[in-house]
C-alpha cells in the first residue's frame, strides 16, 4: 500500500516536471532590448510577461531579455514610472521596445479611504509613499522611515529605544487637551493610537497620509489630526515570486552627554558645600572642619585629603551603553492568477538595544488572499500575526535608567571590592560615603541586571471582505475587521538590588496583563460610471465599530530569596483589574465628479455617533468639498512644451477629534476609603464634574495646492497653503478650586494652524547615470485664538518646567525668568534690581517689567518648541546597478526645555553635572564663563526656578540616512535559481549637528497626549502640552545595516 502510494507520488512528480519542460520546449526563443523612449537609455528590471500566463522574465542591467514564447504570443512590458506596453510578437525573434515614461505618473493609484483615486483626480492634500521608498531602511515602524520625507508631516523620534514609535504631527498641533496622534487605518480598520510596530514594514505596499481636513473628513470625528493609511501587499498577477532577505545591523550611541569627571565633581561638591556653609552665618570659613559643621554642610574627608584616588572616575554612559547587533530575516511568497492573488510573508527581527540587557524581538506572519469566485463576486482575507518580546528601559525620563545614569556621581567604581554595585553596600569600604546623604548613585546595572523584566505582546489583525458587482458599475463591499491585542509584563526586582540603587529596596514582583479587542463592520456601495465627458464615482457606506479594553495587575513582596521569581514565592500585596469600552456608528457618502477628466469636484459627508460624548451631543456631521483643475490639459497650454503638467487644487472640510477618556462626559465616582477603629469602611467620592454637552473638537481647514511638472517632468513641484481652525477645543478648563476640582472637561476655545508646504523632485541627470534630488520644506504657524472663561491662560508646571498657553500666542510657550549671566561682584549687584538674597556668583535675573524689583511678575515667555520651519533633502544617484542616496533633515528655530538642568545643570542633592557647569563662578577673580552660577547646597534665591538657563536652541541638521545598494548583474545570476539579487548598506542617524546638551533635540519625555482606554478622567497635565521638554531621554543610536535581498 505504502509502496503504491510512493510510486504514484513519484510518477506524478515526474509528470509535473515533464509537463513543465514540455511547455518550454513548445515555444520559441525571442530576445530584445527595452529602452526609455525619452532618454534612450537601457531599462533594467523591466518585467516582460507573456500575456495571460505566468511565463515571464526581467530585463538585465543592459536592458536585454530572453524568453521562450508560444505562437501568437503578446508580450506585456511593465515598469514602475513607465506606461505598460503590449506588443504582439508575430513572427519576430527580436522584439525591442521603447517605454514611455508615465505622464507624471498621473495614473498612479492613491488610496484615499473607502476607495482609491488616480493621482490625476486627487483634489485634497494626500501624500503617498510606495514600498520602494522605504524598502532598504532599517526600522520596525514604517513611519520612522518617512521622517523628513513628507512636507507637512512632522515625524520625530522622541525615544531611541527599539520599538518606540515616533511622534507624528500632521500640519501642526490642533489640540491642547485631546490626543494629537493621527488616526491609523490599516487595511481599512481605523485605529486610534495604534502601534505600527505591529505591521512589518516589508509587508506594506503603500502609506498614504491624508493631510487636509477635506481628505480626512471621510473619517469624520477622528480625522482632525490627519490620517495615516497603511495598505498591505497583495501578489500581482504573474509568476510567483519568492523574496528573501537578511540584514545585519550595528547600533551605537555616537553622541554622548558631556558630564563632569570625578575630579571636576569633587571640586563642584566641595564648593557647593563651602558656599552654603560660609553663607549660613557670619564667621564661617570654607576651611572649617566637619566637626563644627551641621550634617548638610559636611564634606567627605577623601575629597579634601586625597581626591586624586578617584582619577577620572566612571562615566556611567560607558557602563550602560554598548554596541548592539540586530538581525532581520524576511521571506515572502507572492503571486497570482486572474482569479487568485496571494501573499504569504514571515519575518523575524532580533534586535539588541544599545542599553544594557535591553532587546526587541519580533515575529511577524501575514497571509493576504483574494479570490474571484465569479464575474460578480470576489472575496478576500488578510490575516496577520505579530508577536513581540522586548525589554525596554530608559524611556521614561526622570527616574528611569538613562536619566539616573546621567545623574550618578562619577567617583564610584562600576564594581566595589566585593563585586557588588554600589557604595550603599554595608560591607564595603565604600560605605564610608553612605553617611553623606548628598552623594548619588543609581547604578545602571541595579536597574538592568538586578531587575528582570519582559514585555510580551501579541497582535492579531484580520480583515475579511466580499465584493459584489451588483450590476455593471455598481459594487457592494462588505467587510469585517478585527484586531486582538494582548500584552503581558513580568518583572522581578532582586532584594537590595545589590546595593547599587539609592536605597536598599525589598524584593518585588509584578505581573500586568492587558487585552484589547476591536471590531469593525463596514458596508459600502460604490457607483462608478462615465457618461460621455462626465465621470461620476459615488460612495455610500455604513460602519459600526466597538472596542473593549481590559487591564489587570498583581504585585507581590516578601520573597524569601531571589531564587523563585514568580509571584507564588512571595506574598501578593496589591492588584487591580479594570475594563473600558467605546463604540461608534457612522454613515458616510462621497461623490467624485469629473468633466473631461480635467475638472474635478469631490464632496463628502460623514455622520458619526460615539459613546464617548454627552447624551445631548452624541452625533456630529463632518462635510467637505474640494475641486481640482488640470490646467495643462487645456488647449491653451497644450503647445507650451515647458509645462507638461499643471494642476490647481482647492479644498475645504471639517474633521473632528474624539480623543478624550472613554467616559469623559459622565460624573464618575472613585473609591476613597476610611477606617473606623480596625474596620475598613468603603467610601465613594465624585472624581470629576459631569458634562453632558461634551462633543468633538472640530477642525475646519482650507487648502490650496498646485502641482507643476516642467521640462518633460524632469522637474516636479508641489506647493500647498492651508489654514485650519479648531473650534470647540476639548479643554480641561482650569476651574476655581472652590468647586472641589481643578479642571472641567469642556468644549471651549479655538486654535489656528496656518502653513505652507513645498515639495520638489528633480531628475537632474538621466541616462546611464541618474541623479535625483528631492527637497521639501514645511512651515506651520500655530496660534491660540480663544481659551476658557475670561481667556485665562492655561499654565502647566511639571517638575519646575512651566508651559503657558495664552490667547494670541502659540501653544505651550516656556514661561519663566530670564537669566542674564552671573553677578561678578557686589558692585554689579548693587547697580541693578536684584532679589534680596543675591550674593556675588548668583544669577543675574532680568527685571522684565522694569519695576526695580525681582518678583514673580518678571517671568515671561522664554521660548517655544515649535520650529519656524522644517526641511528635508535627499539626493540619489544611480549608475547601472549601483545606487547611492543620502538624506539631510533639518529643523530650524524652535527651542527645547532641558528638564535635566534641574539635576545636571544646577546643584541638586549631589547629582553629577554637565562638564560645562564646571566653569561656574568661583570668586571675583575666577568668574568662570559668565553663564554658570556658583553651586550651593542651600540656594536662597531663584537659582532653581525655571528660567532661560533651562532653554536651549532646538535647531538641528541631521544626516538622517545614507544608503548604497548594488544589484548584481543578471548575467552573473543566470546559472543560479535567482531572478535578482541586491546587496545594500544603510546607515541611519549618521550625524547630528546640534548644540543641545543632551542626546538629541528630537528627544522629549512627554509623548503626544493619549488617553489610556482605562483612564477614567484626566485632570493631570496632558503630556502633549509639555512640548519639547526633555527629562533625560533614551538616545537615538546610529544604526548601520548590511543586507542582501534575493528574488527567486
Amino acid at each position, binding site marked *: 500500500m505504502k509502496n503504491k502510494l510512493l510510486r504514484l507520488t513519484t510518477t506524478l512528480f515526474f509528470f509535473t516536471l515533464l509537463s513543465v519542460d514540455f511547455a518550454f520546449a513548445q515555444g520559441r526563443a525571442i530576445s530584445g532590448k527595452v529602452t526609455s523612449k525619452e532618454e534612450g537609455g537601457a531599462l533594467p528590471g523591466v518585467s516582460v510577461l507573456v500575456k495571460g500566463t505566468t511565463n515571464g522574465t526581467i530585463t538585465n542591467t543592459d536592458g536585454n531579455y530572453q524568453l521562450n514564447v508560444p505562437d501568437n504570443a503578446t508580450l506585456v512590458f511593465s515598469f514602475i514610472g513607465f506606461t505598460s506596453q503590449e506588443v504582439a510578437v508575430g513572427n519576430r525573434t527580436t522584439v525591442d521596445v521603447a517605454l514611455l515614461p508615465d505622464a507624471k505618473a498621473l495614473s498612479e493609484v492613491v488610496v484615499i479611504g473607502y476607495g482609491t483615486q488616480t493621482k490625476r483626480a486627487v483634489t485634497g492634500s494626500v501624500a503617498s509613499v510606495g514600498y520602494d521608498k522605504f524598502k532598504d531602511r532599517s526600522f520596525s515602524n514604517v513611519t520612522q522611515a518617512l521622517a523628513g520625507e513628507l512636507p507637512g508631516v512632522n515625524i520625530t523620534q522622541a525615544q531611541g529605544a527599539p520599538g518606540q514609535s515616533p511622534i507624528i504631527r500632521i500640519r501642526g498641533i490642533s489640540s491642547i487637551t485631546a490626543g494629537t496622534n493621527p488616526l491609523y487605518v490599516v487595511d481599512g480598520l481605523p485605529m486610534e493610537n495604534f502601534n505600527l510596530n505591529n505591521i512589518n514594514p516589508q509587508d506594506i505596499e503603500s502609506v498614504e497620509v491624508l493631510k487636509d481636513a477635506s481628505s480626512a473628513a471621510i473619517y469624520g470625528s477622528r480625522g482632525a489630526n490627519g490620517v495615516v493609511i497603511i495598505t498591505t501587499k497583495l501578489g500581482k498577477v504573474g509568476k510567483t515570486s519568492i523574496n528573501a532577505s537578511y540584514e545585519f545591523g550595528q547600533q551605537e550611541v555616537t553622541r554622548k552627554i558631556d558630564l563632569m569627571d570625578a575630579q571636576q565633581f569633587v571640586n563642584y561638591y566641595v564648593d557647593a558645600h563651602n558656599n552654603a556653609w560660609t553663607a549660613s552665618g557670619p564667621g564661617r570659613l570654607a576651611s572649617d572642619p566637619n566637626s563644627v559643621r551641621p550634617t548638610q554642610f559636611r564634606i567627605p574627608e577623601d575629597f579634601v585629603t586625597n581626591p586624586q584616588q578617584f582619577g577620572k572616575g566612571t562615566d556611567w554612559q560607558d557602563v550602560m551603553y554598548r554596541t548592539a547587533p540586530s538581525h532581520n530575516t524576511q521571506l515572502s511568497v507572492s503571486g497570482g492568477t486572474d482569479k487568485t492573488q496571494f501573499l504569504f510573508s514571515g519575518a523575524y527581527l532580533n534586535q539588541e538595544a544599545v542599553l544594557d540587557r535591553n532587546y526587541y524581538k519580533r515575529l511577524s506572519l501575514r497571509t493576504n488572499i483574494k479570490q474571484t469566485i465569479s464575474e460578480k463576486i470576489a472575496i478576500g482575507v488578510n490575516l496577520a500575526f505579530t508577536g513581540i518580546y522586548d525589554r525596554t528601559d530608559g524611556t521614561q525620563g526622570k527616574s528611569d535608567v538613562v536619566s539616573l545614569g546621567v545623574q550618578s556621581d562619577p567617583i564610584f567604581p562600576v564594581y566595589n571590592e566585593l563585586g557588588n554595585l554600589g557604595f550603599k553596600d554595608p560591607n564595603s569600604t565604600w560605605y564610608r560615603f553612605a553617611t553623606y546623604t548628598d552623594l548619588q548613585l543609581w547604578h545602571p546595572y541595579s536597574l538592568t541586571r538586578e531587575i528582570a523584566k519582559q514585555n510580551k505582546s501579541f497582535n492579531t489583525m484580520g480583515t475579511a471582505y466580499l465584493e459584489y458587482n451588483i450590476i455593471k458599475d455598481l459594487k457592494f463591499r462588505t467587510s469585517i475587521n478585527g484586531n486582538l491585542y494582548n500584552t503581558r509584563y513580568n518583572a522581578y526586582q532582586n532584594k537590595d538590588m545589590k546595593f547599587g540603587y539609592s536605597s536598599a529596596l525589598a524584593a518585588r514582583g509584578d505581573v500586568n496583563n492587558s487585552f484589547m479587542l476591536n471590531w469593525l463592520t463596514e458596508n459600502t456601495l460604490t457607483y462608478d460610471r462615465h457618461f460621455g465627458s462626465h465621470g461620476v464615482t459615488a460612495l455610500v457606506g455604513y460602519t459600526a465599530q466597538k472596542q473593549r479594553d481590559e487591564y489587570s495587575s498583581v504585585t507581590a513582596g516578601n520573597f524569601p530569596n531571589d531564587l523563585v521569581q514568580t509571584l507564588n514565592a512571595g506574598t501578593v500585596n496589591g492588584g487591580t483589574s479594570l475594563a473600558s469600552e467605546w463604540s461608534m456608528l457612522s454613515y458616510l457618502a462621497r461623490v467624485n465628479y469629473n468633466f473631461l477628466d480635467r475638472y474635478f469636484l469631490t464632496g463628502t459627508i460623514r455622520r458619526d455617533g460615539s459613546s464617548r460624548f454627552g447624551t445631548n451631543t452624541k452625533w456630529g456631521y463632518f462635510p467637505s468639498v474640494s475641486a481640482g483643475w488640470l490646467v495643462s490639459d487645456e488647449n491653451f497650454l497644450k503647445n507650451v512644451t515647458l509645462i507638461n503638467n499643471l494642476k490647481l487644487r482647492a479644498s475645504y472640510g471639517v474633521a473632528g477629534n474624539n480623543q478624550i477618556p472613554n467616559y469623559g462626559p459622565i460624573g464618575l465616582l472613585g473609591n476613597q476609603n476610611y477606617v473606623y477603629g480596625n474596620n475598613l469602611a468603603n467610601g465613594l467620592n465624585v472624581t470629576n464634574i459631569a458634562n453632558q454637552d461634551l462633543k468633538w473638537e472640530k477642525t475646519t481647514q482650507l487648502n490650496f495646492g498646485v502641482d507643476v511638472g516642467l521640462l518633460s517632468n524632469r522637474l516636479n513641484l508641489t506647493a500647498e497653503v492651508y489654514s485650519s481652525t479648531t473650534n470647540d477645543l476639548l479643554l480641561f478648563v482650569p*476651574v476655581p478650586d472652590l*468647586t472641589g476640582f481643578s479642571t472641567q472637561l469642556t468644549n471651549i476655545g479655538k486654535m489656528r494652524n496656518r502653513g505652507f508646504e513645498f515639495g520638489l523632485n528633480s531628475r537632474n541627470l538621466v541616462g546611464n547615470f541618474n541623479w535625483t534630488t528631492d527637497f521639501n520644506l514645511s512651515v506651520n504657524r500655530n496660534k491660540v485664538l480663544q481659551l476658557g472663561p475670561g481667556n485665562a491662560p492655561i499654565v502647566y508646571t511639571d517638575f519646575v518646567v512651566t508651559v503657558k498657553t495664552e490667547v494670541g500666542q502659540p501653544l505651550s510657550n516656556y514661561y519663566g525668568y530670564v537669566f542674564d549671566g552671573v553677578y561678578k561682584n557686589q558692585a554689579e549687584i548693587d547697580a541693578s534690581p536684584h532679589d534680596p538674597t543675591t550674593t556675588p556668583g548668583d544669577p543675574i535675573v532680568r527685571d522684565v517689567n522694569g519695576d526695580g524689583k525681582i518678583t514673580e511678575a518678571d517671568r515671561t515667555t522664554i521660548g517655544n518648541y515649535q520650529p519656524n520651519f522644517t526641511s528635508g533633502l535627499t539626493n540619489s544617484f544611480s549608475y547601472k546597478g549601483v545606487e547611492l542616496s543620502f538624506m539631510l533633515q533639518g529643523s530650524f528655530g524652535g527651542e527645547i526645555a532641558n528638564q535635566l538642568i534641574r539635576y545636571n545643570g544646577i546643584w541638586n542633592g549631589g547629582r553629577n553635572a554637565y562638564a560645562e557647569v564646571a566653569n561656574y563662578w568661583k570668586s571675583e577673580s575666577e568668574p568662570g564663563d559668565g553663564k554658570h552660577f556658583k553651586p550651593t547646597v542651600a540656594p536662597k534665591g531663584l537659582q532653581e526656578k525655571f528660567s532661560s538657563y533651562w532653554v536651549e536652541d532646538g535647531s538641528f541638521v541631521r544626516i538622517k540616512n545614507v544608503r548604497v545598494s548594488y544589484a548584481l548583474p543578471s548575467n552573473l545570476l543566470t546559472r543560479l535559481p535567482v531572478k535578482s539579487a541586491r546587496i545594500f548598506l544603510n546607515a541611519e542617524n549618521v550625524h547630528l549637528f546640534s548644540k543641545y546638551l543632551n542626546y538629541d533635540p528630537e528627544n522629549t519625555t512627554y509623548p503626544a497626549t493619549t488617553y489610556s482606554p482605562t483612564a477614567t478622567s484626566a485632570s493631570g497635565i496632558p503630556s502633549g502640552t509639555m512640548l519639547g521638554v526633555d527629562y533625560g531621554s533614551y538616545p537615538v543610536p546610529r544604526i548601520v545595516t548590511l543586507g542582501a535581498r534575493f528574488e527567486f
Partner: protein
Amino acid sequence: MNKIKRIIAIGCLSVMAFGCKEDFLELAPISNSNANNFYKTREDFDLASNAAYATLYTVYAPESSVSYTEQLSDNATLYNVAGIQADRWAFKDYSLRTSNVEVYRFWQENYRALFSINIVLDKIETASVDEAYKEQVKAQMRFLRGLYYFNMVQLWGDLPLVTKPLSAEESYKVLRSPVADVYKLITEDLEYAAEKLPLASAITAPGKASKGAAQTLLGKVYLTQKNKTAAAQILQEVVNSKQYELLPSYASLWVVTNKNTKESIFEIQYKGGAGNPYSNYWTAFAPTENFVLTQFGGGMNQVTDDLYNEYEPGDPRRDASISTGYTNKVGTFIPIKFPIKWMDRTAQVVGGRELSNNNFMVLRYADVLLMLAEATGDANFLNQVRTRAGLPAFGAAGYPTDKYPTLELAIEHERRVELALEFHRWFDLKRTDRALPVLTAKGKAVTPQKLLIPIPEIVRQQNPAIAQNEGY
C-alpha cells in the same frame, strides 16, 4: 427590474445585519460607579460620608498645611529633602511667594475636602432617608467643615466661603468673606454638631466625631476669638461629661497599638498594611536617606534644638517625642533630631515604604485641660498635665519660675512640650498674640503680615477679583 430588487435586498440586508440600535452608543462605565444614580439611599450616604472622613488623610497628612505650621513656628525645620527645595524651605524662612506650589496644594486639598463634605450636606437635604439619620450625617459633616474652616481661617484669614457644591460659573462669584463671617459659619457648624452628636461612649464606629469633639473644638474657636467665658463654659462641659481622662503615662499615648484611648477626643484612624489606608507620619518625619529607620525618609519637621531644649530636666515627654539621631548601617551615629511620636518599627514594608498603623490625634484631653487653664486662669488644670509628666506643679517648689514667671508663660511652655509636633504650636502663638515676639527673638524674619500665608497666585489668575493678603 431584477437588478433594482437586488440592490434593495442588499441594502436592507446590510442595515438589518448591522443597523444597530441607538443603545449601541450608550455605554456605562465598567470600572467606576456613575454619579448620576448615587446619593439616594442610606447606603449611598454611608459611602459618601466615609469618603468625607477620608479627606482627613490629606488635610492632616504629614506634608499638609497644618503640618507645615510646625516649621512656621520654632518647633521644626527642614534640611536637605528630595524635590523642589526652595518652596518647602520658604515656610521656616518666612520667604513664601505667591507661586509657592505647596501653598497652592494646601488650597486645593482644603477646598477639595470641603466639596466632599458639602456634597453630602447638599444631597441629603432632599434624599428620602429618615430624619434621625439625616441629622447624624449632617452633624458629622458640619463638624468636619468647622474643623477645616478653622484651620483655613488661621492660615489665610479672609476666605471664600463655600457651603454647597458650586458650578464653575457660580464659583467665580464667591469672593473672600471677612474673618468674622468665617468664624460665624464655624461656630454655627460646631454648635450644631455639639448639639446633635452623641457622647463618645455612644459612638460605635471609633473615629466618628462625638459631642465632646465638637465641644472641644468649639472651645478652641471661642478661645481664638478671645471669648474666654464661652470657652471656659463649653470646655468645662467636656470635663463634666466624664468621657475623657489623661492616660497615666505620656509614653503610652504613642504606642502604635494604643488607639482611641480615654485621652483621645478626635483621632484620625489609620490601618497599617497593604491595601489599607495606612499612615505615613513615621516615614515622612524620619530623616532623609537614613536607610536604617525607614526605607525612605521624608525629612519633614525635623526638630529644632530650641524645642529640644525647652523641656525641663527630667521631663519624660522629651524622649517620648524626639530622637537625637540614629546609628547608620556601619555603626556611625548620625546626630539629627526628629519626631518619634508616630514611630512604627513593625510596619509592613511594601514597594519600598512602610505602611504604618499609627493613628493621629487631632484633639486630646491634655489640650482641653490646658485650654481650660488659659480660659479660666486656674493653674489646677495646667498642673494635672504636669503631674502626669511627673513634674512639679506651677507655683510649687522646683517649678522653673524664673523662666516662666506668669501663668500665661507657663501655659505657653506647657502646651509647647505637651503637644509638641502635633500641629498646635504656631496656632497657639498666634492665638495668644505671642507669635511676633517669640519668633522674632529666635531670628525668624516674621512680620505681622507674614502671619498669614499668601493666596496662591493661580487662584488670583483665575479670578482676579479675589484679593491678595497684604505683604504678598
